[in-house]
């Protein structure tokens, strides 16, 4: 009997995901208001930074909020002093990236173990939180920018069209900028994962000793990864400052650090898109819970995390992708 050949199932290619994400970002304003969407895109960018550092580089950072906060504060301080947003944006990214490079080099060249690395990054965030919280009073100022202690820094210039300080970007325009940056950063990091550096990074994540025995300087590779992740988190911080129009020490809080880790875990550790999805879903859920009476958002989020860890231990995205994957061919040559 002649067998009818089974039609091959559609295979996902990298550009499929990129095109679908771009389309999703472009159409989202038709369904959700741009104010909420911008915040969700900022969350996604922040989640992307940890997804790269932790999921791809294997470095669990408990203090990603530190670089997020540094980006936000740097933007506020520089924009007040310089009047425009372009330099402030660049410096926000640069300061966060430089701080991550400095902290990373101390930890990785100092051969700090994974557990202590988690503690150090957490303490670094809390130190910043404590310090910035105690900067009330006129003595704490950088140029014309008062740091403001718990009240933070309000009233700094909004994001503007480069070179045109009188043309602020807000509303749908701000969303378009953030969404474009998110897409660009995701594309960049995804491309990086496919390069030789990305493959080495995967090797370092899998077995540091073997990578070193093969002649790779693991300390340098991890420091660069940490620095890049910090810079992306800084960019998210800059956008957050532009969106909120105020920065407070809350950006350095333990809650923010924990949230980022939860986004990555729920979305799917080891992927870049999954944590972005996790950030959007959980960010939207948190926003909705905030409007409900009788539901504590902390309890609901905690229960959700437990459910995901128990039933989808690899996260939401890997579980979804599994549905679309072709069954592997038989035989020993079956592979990745």
């Amino acid at each position, binding site marked *: 009997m002649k067998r009818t050949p089974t039609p091959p199932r559609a295979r996902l290619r990298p550009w499929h995901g990129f095109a679908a994400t771009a389309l999703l970002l472009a159409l989202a304003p038709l369904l959700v208001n741009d104010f909420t969407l911008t915040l969700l895109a900022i969350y996604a960018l922040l989640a992307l930074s940890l997804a790269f550092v932790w999921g791809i580089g294997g470095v669990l950072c408990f203090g990603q909020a530190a670089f997020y906060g540094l980006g936000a504060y740097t933007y506020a301080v520089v924009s007040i002093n310089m009047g425009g947003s372009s330099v402030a944006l660049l410096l926000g990214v640069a300061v966060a990236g430089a701080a991550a490079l400095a902290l990373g080099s101390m930890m990785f060249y100092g051969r700090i173990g994974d557990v202590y690395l988690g503690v150090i990054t957490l303490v670094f965030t809390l130190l910043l939180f404590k310090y910035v919280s105690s900067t009330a009073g006129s003595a704490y100022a950088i140029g014309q920018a008062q740091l403001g202690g718990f009240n933070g820094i309000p009233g700094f210039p909004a994001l503007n069209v480069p070179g045109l300080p009188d043309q602020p970007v807000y509303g749908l325009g701000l969303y378009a900028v953030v969404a474009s940056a998110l897409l660009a950063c995701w594309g960049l990091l995804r491309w990086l994962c496919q390069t030789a550096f990305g493959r080495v990074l995967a090797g370092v994540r899998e077995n540091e000793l073997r990578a070193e025995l093969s002649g790779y300087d693991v300390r340098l590779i991890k420091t660069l990864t940490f620095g890049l992740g910090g810079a992306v988190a800084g960019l998210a911080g800059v956008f957050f400052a532009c969106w909120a129009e105020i920065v407070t020490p809350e950006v350095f809080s333990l809650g923010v650090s924990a949230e980022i880790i939860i986004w990555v875990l729920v979305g799917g550790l080891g992927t870049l898109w999954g944590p972005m999805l996790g950030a959007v879903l959980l960010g939207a859920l948190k926003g909705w819970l905030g409007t409900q009476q009788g539901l504590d958002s902390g309890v609901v989020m905690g229960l959700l995390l437990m459910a995901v860890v128990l039933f989808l231990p690899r996260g939401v995205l890997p579980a979804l992708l599994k549905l679309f994957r072709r069954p592997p061919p038989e035989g*020993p040559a079956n592979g990745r």
Partner: protein
Amino acid sequence: MAADTVVHASGVVMRFGGVTAVDGVSLRLRRGELRCLIGPNGAGKSTFFKCLSGQLVPTEGEILLRGDPIEGLALHAVARLGVGIKTQVPSLMNALSVRENLWLSARSLRQRSAAEVQQRVDELTEQLGLGAQLQRDAGALAHGQRQMVELGVVLARNPWLVLLDEPAGGLTRDEVHRMAELVRALTAQATVVVVEHDMNFVREIADTVTAFHRGRVLAEGTADAVLSDERVRDVYLGRAAKEPA
């Protein structure tokens, strides 16, 4: 130092707190030599091996590779000198395929082009018989296959000094024989140091043997001379071995 001496360790001491694991060991290796380090558990051979490979920094003494001291060099820098190291428990990148494991090691030599890297991977795949495993995750392989893949990873960089820690450990008889052939063939291009417990394997491959006992060199010489040395039989093979049954 003699012209053909490529490894020269002198007065190496390694202490861990109050325990002296290696106590004043000196060793010279000639170009293309195959040296086996043997000794009972706790004799200090693995610790000395780790000093030689840069994984441990000796408390005292000096190690020269081709005349250059390795003191102060990070592990990756020792590897970049042209040293290939196989660990006691196969150390591979488990979630990556066998091809990726070989490729990552082969491309770590910066002067190689992409085509040369691929050529080296192909050569090793054929030489070690890894064709059927090439696309599989290294973590999914059986122990014997992992030993072979790790040997490939070590050789991918064309090292001039190959350090192998128990390459025959956990292998079947056929695999041991195959591994012995491969290790013997290495001497055409590299100096080889092997730490091994399997005496049949040592007899099969060794030019020269150094026997360790209590952190010191007990005997050194040709395989036949060392393995038949009374002192070595006493401390390593056990006194009962020389007594009639």
